[in-house]
């Protein structure tokens, strides 16, 4: 893929499951990410897009459920993109393929058979590096991506019913580079932030968002940034329902942020 792209080709590589990307880690991190930088722009492998199904699927256990985005967001030179729906997936994937940078494109596999939308037939791109405000609100900003967006929508519905509030939901879409401005703008308005992802808590991408927003919006914050995430263990098979950040845990996080 890298070599194909380095000679001007467009390569879309598919990793069967994100959990199996690691044999390619050296190539992705040491080569693809640094191709343009190390050669003084004489060479690049921007024509490369690597797609991989990720995240929980209900019965995947350790090796068919992982969310490996944080390994790649830690590598400058890569783009990391995660779509939440069919319409988003097509636009973001086409943009990723057209992008002059190598892109890691993680597709929440549970959505393959669960998400239905009327996807336009013609070619269209959605912008990389740009988050989308999926729902507007005034009291709390929630940031998520991929399949977790649906869990968050359910938690928001619950919270807006019970807690007399309105909540703004942002789909980050691109994790690297990520749209700091959109999140910052929202948090300056709401004063509260909650981030949720299936990946484990320690060094999960929520840590990056939390640190950056705390740096930039410290005086706007009315509560500590909440992270509702997977636990710091390998992804357990029969305990999946207890492991993933479900509606109840997200609701409690919302409550904690609002009532601080």
């Amino acid at each position: 893929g890298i070599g194909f792209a380095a000679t001007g080709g467009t390569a879309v590589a598919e990793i069967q499951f994100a959990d199996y990307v690691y044999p390619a880690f050296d190539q992705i991190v040491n080569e693809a990410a640094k191709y343009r930088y190390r050669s003084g722009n004489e060479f690049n492998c921007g024509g490369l897009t690597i797609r991989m199904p990720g995240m929980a699927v209900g019965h995947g256990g350790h090796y068919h459920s992982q969310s490996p985005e944080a390994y790649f967001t830690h590598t400058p030179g890569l783009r990391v993109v995660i779509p939440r729906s069919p319409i988003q997936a097509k636009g973001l994937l086409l943009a990723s393929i057209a992008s002059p940078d190598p892109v890691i494109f993680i597709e929440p596999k549970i959505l393959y058979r669960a998400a239905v939308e009327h996807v336009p037939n013609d070619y269209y791109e959605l912008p990389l590096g740009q988050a989308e405000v999926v729902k507007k609100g005034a009291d709390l900003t929630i940031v998520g991506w991929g399949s977790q967006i649906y869990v968050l929508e359910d938690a928001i519905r619950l919270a807006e019913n019970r807690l007399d509030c309105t909540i703004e939901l942002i789909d980050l879409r691109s994790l690297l580079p990520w749209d700091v401005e959109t999140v910052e703008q929202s948090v300056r308005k709401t004063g509260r932030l909650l981030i949720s992802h299936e990946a484990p808590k320690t060094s999960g991408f929520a840590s990056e968002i939390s640190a950056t927003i705390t740096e930039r919006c410290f005086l706007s914050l009315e509560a500590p940034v909440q992270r509702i995430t997977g636990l710091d263990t390998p992804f357990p098979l029969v305990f999946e329902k207890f492991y993933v950040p479900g509606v109840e845990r997200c609701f409690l996080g919302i409550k904690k942020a609002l009532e601080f």
Partner: protein
Amino acid sequence: MAARVLRHSKCARRLIHPNKSNFAAPALQIQRHQHADQNEMNETLAQFPGAKAKYTEKLEFLQPDVYNGIPIYRVMDRNGVIFDQTQDPGLSDEELLKWYKSMTMLNTMDKILYESQRQGRISFYMTNYGEEATHIGSAAALQPKDLVYGQYREAGVLMYRGFTLDEFCDQCYGNIADRGKGKQMPIHYGSVDLSFVTISSPLATQMPQAAGSAYAFKRAQNGLVVICYFGEGAASEGDAHAAFNFAATLECPIIFFCRNNGYAISTPVQDQYRGDGIAVRGPAYGMSTIRVDGNDALAVYNATAAARDIAVKENRPVLIEAMTYRIGHHSTSDDSSAYRSVDEVRYWNQRDHPITRFYNYIQRKGIWSEEQDKAWKDDTRKQVLQAFARAEKRLKPAWSEMFTEVYDELPQDLKRQKEEMEAHVKMYKDKYPLSNYESS
């Protein structure tokens, strides 16, 4: 030129004298006389450190088909008739029947557990159809404490060693009796008592690990070997190369056992490699190698026994490539009719099935009959269904088990996460399926 480069390095300035070469003289001596005694030049080996070989003046490539297909060692034909009586290992009737019963019990268990996944009772399953002889024949040639690293299609090795039907079913159900405590998908078996390292999904990762364990065995001088099973698809992974080369250079007592069953999920062997399968790679790494009829349990046994002997006595790796055919789908997540013909599958099932061939052999020997076979097959069904029913009734482990064994000891931060979850689940107990789990 090298000296010029080094002069720019701060480190090199300390290390080398700019006017004096710091490099050792090359190993190859420069010939002062051209065409010195021609005979002498032809007879002597080149002195390159990298290869001890003769010179040639002929421009000739070694072609990939130079071996023209490494021959396949077999003992019996499809009717269970032995070709060369000297190759009959002469095992006891009891042992031979143990083989047959293990293979058929495995086959019955596969059928029932595959069905149970289809019924939504277990989440996933992989069958071993067509490869039973590769498991039983090889397992029978090993010592009980020889360490086994598997890929995922070697349940028969565990069966032979005494893993019970309850243990198989408990792991597939991920219940309180599962050694893995429900953390991994079905068929990810493991047993330290039976010297079978717990299976992990990623391919070929077990191979360098197996080489490392064999190295440990050599140092311990315990007279044991490691056997490492893998498929012909896994052999394309980088880890396979690393495993072969480390095992060879570190001189480890390991048997690399390749199950070449024709398919890596949907990838047929035609797309997997261009060389003569996996066997041809063995000599390239300096390993003694044999290709064997994987559907002939006696051949698998003989080859494995001989390989074990070499490995343990000479402390070096041996490669066995067992040719066989994957009769079943890759897993319950696969429908192989999408990429291969039903006729092809039927051919192997009906014409060259390892269990049928072994049945023919023991029937010819007069130690097994059709009546016994029918009674036994009914018995296997009964036994599997009973174990299955027991496993189904058992609860899942307490959900707090999720936090155990991440590390040897529970770290403080994880302990806090556990306590938060405990409080959370208590508050929301009707939102979690607690009745399926043992209480914490």
